[in-house]
């Protein structure tokens, strides 16, 4: 009970001088905040990628022919088979793989009965699965059907409905003079998915437009005239043509890095020079390559907390001198040296807990700010409870430690001496 009383007394003293207490807590607040927020971002992103990697494109690899090599050999269906076999041989779970030829029909296709798709993607009947899309209605195309069949993406289906017809059964122009009957409609992409490119960046994000996009070009990443991928207005048709413009692949997020290397090696062995796109940040997060930076925040945590401890100790010494008469009266009333020591240590602990909790709040704010500035679509943050409690515990131990010297001084002074001085 005495501990509880000491704690209540300590809280009252802190509340008595709120500004001073707040200023004294700065070291603890910022120390805890800088230790907390990078972990919050990394852990949040890791969980987000593992839990909903499909939504943020963390499970997709997109491959195209490198346009800058000499005499490039085009990709073909044999490459798709070779990549699938190579991945299978390495034990990688291939969730879906497809090679598609892309035809961008002119916007004003003669004789088009309704809206013209942004692009016609010709490949395997279920090729759309390799882009993370799924059927919302209807069925996949029949490659052997007499009239070409198509599965359309969400926005294109809505446009077909807007013309007054049902999407299923409507026709779309394929750009080569043929019309395809719609037999399936794909579930619409979310607005964020429609803005996200193959590298996982939100293409509408101001930081991507102003900085990251330019940086990618600087780093040698090619321009992609592939806006059609993000329109949700494509039509997927079956094709037995050997030509492949894009190879789409889906593997578990943890396998993406290794799978991309295998794709490169396999195509290289077949004399093909390719470029492979996948969100570069997720593998770094998933494989814990970024953990070394956690040590930087740990160093800042130690620096801020050291400053806090030193200043708290110095202020404690001053306070011990000023409060000597109060301590003396307390002792005369029957308090033991241990009581005085405990009271001061509890004060240090309460001060640190307050600083740590404020540090949590500031850390959350910094994490939110970091995510707001991040153009990588799947990055998010999550409060890292174990890490937060660990930092708080360290802050409390340091705070109590800093209170120890002043507490010993306050407890050691004989009451008579203090009262005579006064």
């Amino acid at each position, binding site marked *: 009970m005495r501990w509880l009383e000491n704690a209540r007394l300590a809280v009252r003293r802190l509340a008595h001088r709120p500004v*001073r207490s707040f*200023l*004294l807590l*700065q*070291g603890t607040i*910022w120390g805890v905040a800088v230790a907390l927020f990078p972990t919050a971002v990394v852990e949040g992103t890791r969980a987000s990628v593992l839990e909903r990697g499909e939504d943020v494109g963390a499970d997709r690899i997109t491959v195209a*022919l*490198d*346009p*800058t*090599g*000499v*005499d490039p050999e085009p990709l073909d269906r044999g490459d798709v088979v070779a990549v699938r076999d190579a991945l299978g041989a390495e034990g990688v779970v291939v969730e879906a793989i497809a090679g598609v030829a*892309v035809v*961008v029909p002119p916007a004003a296709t003669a004789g088009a009965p309704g809206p013209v798709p942004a692009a016609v993607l010709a490949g395997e009947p279920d090729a759309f699965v390799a882009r993370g899309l799924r059927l919302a209605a209807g069925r996949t195309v029949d490659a052997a059907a007499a009239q070409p069949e198509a599965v359309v993406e969400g926005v294109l289906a809505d446009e077909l409905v807007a013309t007054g017809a049902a999407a299923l059964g409507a026709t779309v122009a394929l750009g080569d003079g043929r019309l395809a009957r719609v037999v399936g409609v794909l579930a619409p992409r979310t607005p964020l998915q429609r803005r996200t490119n193959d*590298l996982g960046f939100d293409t509408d994000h101001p930081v991507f437009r102003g*900085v990251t996009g*330019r*940086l*990618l*070009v*600087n*780093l*040698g*990443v*090619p*321009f*992609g*005239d*592939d*806006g059609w991928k993000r329109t949700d207005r494509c039509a997927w048709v079956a094709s037995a043509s050997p030509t492949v413009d894009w190879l789409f692949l889906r593997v578990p997020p943890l396998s993406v890095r290794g799978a991309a*290397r295998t794709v490169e090696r396999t195509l*290289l062995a077949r004399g093909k*020079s390719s*470029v*492979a*796109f*996948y969100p*570069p*940040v997720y*593998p*770094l997060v998933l494989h814990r*390559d970024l953990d*070394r930076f956690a*040590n*930087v925040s740990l*160093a*800042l945590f130690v*620096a*801020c907390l050291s*400053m*806090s401890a*030193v*200043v708290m100790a*110095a*202020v404690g*010494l*001053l306070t011990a*001198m*000023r409060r000597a008469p109060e301590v003396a009266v307390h002792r005369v009333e029957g308090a033991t040296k241990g009581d005085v020591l405990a009271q001061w240590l509890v004060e240090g602990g309460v001060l640190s807990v307050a600083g740590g909790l404020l540090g949590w709040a500031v850390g959350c704010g910094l994490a939110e700010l970091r995510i707001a500035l991040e153009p990588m679509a799947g990055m998010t943050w999550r409060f890292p409870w174990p890490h937060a409690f660990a930092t708080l515990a360290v802050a409390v131990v340091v705070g109590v430690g800093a209170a120890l010297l002043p507490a010993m001084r306050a407890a050691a002074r004989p009451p008579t001496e203090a009262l005579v001085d006064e």
Partner: protein
Amino acid sequence: MSRALFGAMGEGLRHLARHPLRSALAALTCAVAIAVTVNVVSLSYGMDEDIRRDLARFGRLTIDVGRAPLLRPGAPRAAFGDAEAARAAEVVAGLGATVVPLRTERTTAAGAGAPAPVVLCAVGADYPRTLSIDLAAGRWFTEAERGWAACVLDESTARALFPGTAAAGVPGRRVRLSAAGDREVPVVGVLADPMTYRALFEAFDEGRGARTLVGSVLSFRNVYVPQDALGTRDLSLVHVVLPDEARLDEARRRLEAVWPAVGLDADPSRVAPVNVFVRRAWIDAFGGTTQAGAMLGNLVWVLVCLVACVMISTLNLLTIRERYDEVAVRRCEGARRAHVVAQVAAEGVATSVVGGLLGLPLGFLGAEVLGRIVELPFRFDLRFAGVAVAVSVALGLLSSVVPARRAAGLHPAAVLSRRLS
């Protein structure tokens, strides 16, 4: 400055000596802030400087002409070969330019270690002129060496293909190239690695697969062979190297009259099939990005210094409250407000100078420890140590003058009467 002012400052220093523990604790706070400042500034600005120096070796006076790195399925591939190289040479005639064609291909190379994917660059004997990089060992191939008669490796390629062998030991060895039908090609030289932070770059180069061949050439993981090794008239790029900046501008103007410049923020649907790419602009743009990174580093140390400043100010404020009586007595003895401020400021500056000087070895120690556990190039740089001590003095002044002015502004009679009552 009057004698009285000097006297006040001397009194301030004596006061510090009278309270050694308190003074030491304040100095320690400064020391920690300075240690952090030295390290963060050294890391961010040091890396920025190193990267800029590296970039300057990437061929500032080189202009690249070639197909746009554009992915547009179905679009016809632009013609770009020997005829375009000749056209480029004709356009820059009279400017003292060297025109160097480049053919690239991805291939697999094997040396003493495991086979590794590399970029094969078929270039002429003039190619080193497109860069400002020395050979680490051996020589470049000559005009007389044709086909697969010789090759030069980038230093990072040499390390990958011949692990554990120093660059000097690589010339004379042979590499097996899949592009050469798996034949063994003798290595005649090793081009020095221009990237100071190669290990860091390799560790975080997650997007390497997304780079085009032409974009990968400047990652310096290449194997260079004579230009006729790849038997094709097709070209990846034509490098045009100018002798100076003035002629670079003129060459750029002439080349851009034939082929458009590629803009970094170009709309992909409007990118021309063949472009002019000025490396100087690329180097400056890249340098700007690393500078932005250094600015972010500033935020960290400014934050730490601000925290230190707030905490030391709080400490000074409390300390000076304990000394209101002393200040009042000094004012009664004839000390002016300025003298009181000078006394406290002298204490603050002395504490921070001592703290700053203590912070330097602490920073050195921190750099050693952090460099080992974080694997980032933390280093102790004396130039930045000077900046840190200046910051420390400013910190001391700022955190002592404000409470000192407040103490000096109090009426002595009011302070003493409160004390007596």
